[in-house]
């Protein structure tokens, strides 16, 4: 069975999504257990796969038994081994943590909800694991479509926000597809490894240049890189809480993984950093992204929206890090994929808990929450620390690598932007913390209020949250191992 892990990782959730859908029509109570079981299997196999990768360097799986350039192959190396673990773990934790939210918000369509949920995760896992450029597009669309379905279930403005997301997402995905087409027209291949093997003779082709630009722009659209970010804040804000805590940690990160994969595996690092001479300007765009994300976040009076803008800034971190063109920056970007997924999950789960109890997430709704939900807010503080970049939470270490990369590349603008964003994050989070710490609890949404009493979220929501919060610190402490044993090998030798 061990050689089938790459397939199982995707297939088990896929099949179980169908089972859940059937269960949604036949017996609604089965949906959640099946979902948990499926994601547990995915989680388990992703971890085993990572260990297998540590032994074998690259795990190749030929789907349908056809060898790569002709058939579709899954290839798992250090980079996607790590991201796979992150995706499956985050999805599983979020699934368990948001069970109550889902019951509260979607009692009628629970089958459909979990179907879309699992399919979304399947899509993401597939994106990460695949070694075929076109297959990636199809899976991207699965993740996007399910994402649209999930996000649009939110309140008031969600459909409009989702529709905008859909337009942007479709443009992005289509651009990606077009870029792959451009590569196909000059190389005749769709397999990533195959393309990169053919490409060196075509480095100066205009088509390859256009393919690169189109692919990257498409991917940027999907990840909400700064000038193209307009869809993200609304979509993430108005999504149901169980959904935003799934999509916010995973979607952008996986797309950033795609970008790094394109940079490292499809267009080789030599092309990216030597032949093209654009990395400096892209880092400058990232600087603007970070600064603008931070400034826009300052203007928000709404917790989720603020977090959404922080995500815009975080995307800037990762893109900038990846484009610095040195080992430290790339390490930081890859590490930040994992770390940012965890910390975003943490803060969005907190929002989920708050919404579950208080039915709101505007700043006014947060008053007195430290007294009411001390553990949730404690976890929030840990998440906030990580986003700010306080050691020993993991956010610090990825920031460390990013700044280190900036210094090595002599790109002090990027360094200043990172520090600036950290400082703004301090202000942002402590504003929230102040509100929930100082102001007395107020009853906005017609609930029974016992101002002095602790009214925590139920244990099924709290325990995963606390696990994530603890995970932030644990991952932070073991950063060295992750970097030395995984990320070090994920970056090709060409990048110094």
């Amino acid at each position: 069975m061990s050689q089938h892990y790459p397939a199982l990782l995707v297939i088990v959730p896929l099949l179980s999504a169908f089972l859940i859908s059937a269960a949604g029509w036949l017996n609604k109570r089965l949906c959640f257990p099946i979902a948990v079981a499926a994601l547990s299997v995915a989680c388990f196999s992703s971890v085993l796969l990572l260990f297998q990768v540590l032994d074998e360097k690259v795990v190749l799986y030929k789907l349908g038994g056809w060898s790569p350039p002709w058939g579709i192959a899954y290839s798992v190396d250090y980079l996607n081994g790590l991201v796979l673990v992150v995706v499956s773990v985050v999805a599983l934790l979020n699934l368990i943590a948001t069970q109550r939210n889902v019951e509260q918000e979607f009692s009628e369509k629970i089958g459909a909800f979990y179907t879309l949920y699992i399919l979304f995760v399947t899509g993401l896992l597939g994106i990460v694991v695949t070694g075929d450029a076109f297959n990636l597009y199809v899976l991207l669309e699965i993740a996007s479509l399910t994402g649209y379905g999930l996000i649009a279930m939110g309140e008031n403005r969600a459909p409009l926000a989702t529709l905008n997301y859909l337009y942007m997402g479709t443009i992005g995905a289509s651009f990606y597809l077009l870029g792959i087409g451009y590569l196909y027209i000059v190389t005749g291949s769709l397999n990533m490894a195959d393309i990169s093997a053919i490409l060196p003779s075509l480095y100066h082709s205009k088509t390859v240049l256009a393919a690169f630009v189109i692919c990257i722009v498409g991917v940027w659209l999907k990840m909400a890189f700064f000038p193209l970010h307009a869809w993200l804040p609304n979509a993430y804000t108005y999504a149901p809480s169980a959904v935003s805590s799934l999509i916010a940690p995973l979607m952008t990160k996986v797309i950033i993984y795609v970008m790094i994969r394109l940079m490292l595996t499809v267009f080789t690092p030599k092309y990216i950093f030597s032949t093209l001479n654009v990395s400096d300007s892209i880092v400058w765009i990232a600087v603007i992204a970070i600064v603008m994300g931070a400034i826009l976040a300052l203007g928000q009076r709404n917790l989720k929206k603020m977090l959404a803008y922080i995500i815009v800034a975080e995307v800037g971190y990762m893109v900038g890090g990846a484009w610095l063109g040195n080992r430290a920056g790339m390490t930081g970007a890859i590490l930040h994929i994992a770390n940012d997924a965890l910390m975003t999950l943490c803060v969005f789960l907190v929002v989920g808990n708050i919404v579950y109890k208080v039915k709101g997430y505007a700043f006014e709704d947060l008053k007195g929450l430290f007294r009411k939900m001390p553990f949730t807010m404690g976890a929030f503080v840990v998440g906030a620390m990580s986003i700010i970049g306080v050691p020993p939470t993991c956010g610090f270490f990825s920031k460390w690598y990013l700044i280190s990369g900036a210094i090595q590349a002599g790109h002090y603008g990027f360094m200043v932007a990172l520090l600036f964003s950290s400082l703004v994050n301090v202000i942002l989070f402590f504003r929230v913390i102040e509100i929930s710490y100082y102001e007395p609890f107020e009853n906005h949404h017609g609930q029974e209020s016992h101002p002095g009493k602790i009214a925590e979220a139920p244990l099924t929501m709290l325990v995963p949250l606390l696990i994530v919060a603890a995970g932030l610190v644990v991952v932070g402490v073991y950063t060295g191992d992750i970097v030395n044993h995984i990320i070090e090998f994920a970056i090709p030798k060409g990048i110094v």
Partner: protein
Amino acid sequence: METITSIKPLLAVLVSLCVVPLLMSSRSPNVREAWTFVAASAKFLIVASMLPVVFNGFEIVYTVAEVIPGVAIKFRVDALGMLFALVSSSLWIVTSVYSIGYMRGLKEHSQTRYFCFFALALSATIGVAFSANLLTLYLFYEMLSFATYPLVTHHQDEEARSSGRKYLLYIVGTSIGFVLPAMLISYNLSGTLEFSRQGFLAGTGSRGLTGVLLVLIVFGFAKAAIMPFHSWLPAAMVAPTPVSALLHAVAVVKVGVFSVVRVLTGVFGINLLISFDFGPFIIFVASATILVGSFIALSQDNLKRLLAFSTIAQLSYIVLGVGLLSPQGMTGGMVHIAMHAFGKITLFFCAGAIFVATGKRNISEMIGIGRRMPVTMTAFFIASLSITGLPPCGGFISKWYLVLGSLQAHQMPVLFVLLVSSLLNAAYFMPIVYKAFFCTPQEAMFEKGVKEAPAFCVVPLVITALISMVLLFYPQPFFGLADMMVKSITGG
């Protein structure tokens, strides 16, 4: 110097961390305070048990995890760290006792939270003391910043809010804005962050770059309250007095100064500072802070604010001592960490005791208080002598060495500064004592009913006052540790 690997430093850090869940789960105040006390004692014992090892010339090392290639979360117990850890852990015991009296006496709210964060803050302090590299130091430094925030803003009112904001802005802002880039730049220069006797930056960068780093670091550790980044300290005095006492006389500010000293000696190295001639810069900054702080203190009426400005001034003595770059100056500066701690904590305890007993905060309302609270005011007097640097108190030793050091370094202006500041110290402390004891009955502002604060308050301040007197005659182990440290870094 030989090293021993031992888990003790980690234990010393963790012991108060471990007690946090216990504190949180215990409902009864008695159990809670008992746990605090147990933890404090345990911590002190662990620290003290390492003392002989350090005196024998060994270093205790423990690596937790290597987080970045070449940089680990690592503890190393050397003389300077030992000195600081000893001071802070011993004072935690005293402060715990005092807290019990203070908090119960004023019936403060949220005592569980208070004790939890107190324990956390102590963990962080010990962590800073024992950190073996800049990263670990930074980690615990930040941890301390955030752990003390709830303590500073304990009252959760508007005043606490604004001062909490100020506190964070200064402390976290400077640490992220200045220290973090400085740390990264030096990491990229030298590839390591490990403190070494010669300083790991030696021979890596140009004078300009090193100068920038120096500025970033000296001002970056804003907990050291070097002007112009000092104003969080008076603002933070809204906290309950034990907090002010321990954290703003001992832990927080001392962590700041300790970090500055540590970085000056371990990162830059004395030789580098001498060769690039950065001493005058440090001396100038420190002297300015001393003088300005003292002058401002003169005009204060609120007792705690006065003490805060006094602290600002006194902290710069330590920086000044190291900035002199002469062995005796440095010894004086390091010893001053301990001396000032004992003296200043007594003063804060006294202020708190007065507040508990009378509810007064301002000096002008304290006329004649010595008659009613003689023990407290006596202790106050002793401590103020220590701070001023007069015998029969410990403060004298450190100030003496500073004077010697300035002579050794041929820095005559420093002598002048020391003289003036001593005079100023006397000028703002002595009137309080005078008015407390020597006033006509008509002037006395207190009724018969006012008595000493509860025993839990009074006993600790008596103890600390006595210790600060004893330190003059028996400055060991602090003096010995400082001496060892200076010898090791100057290679003597």
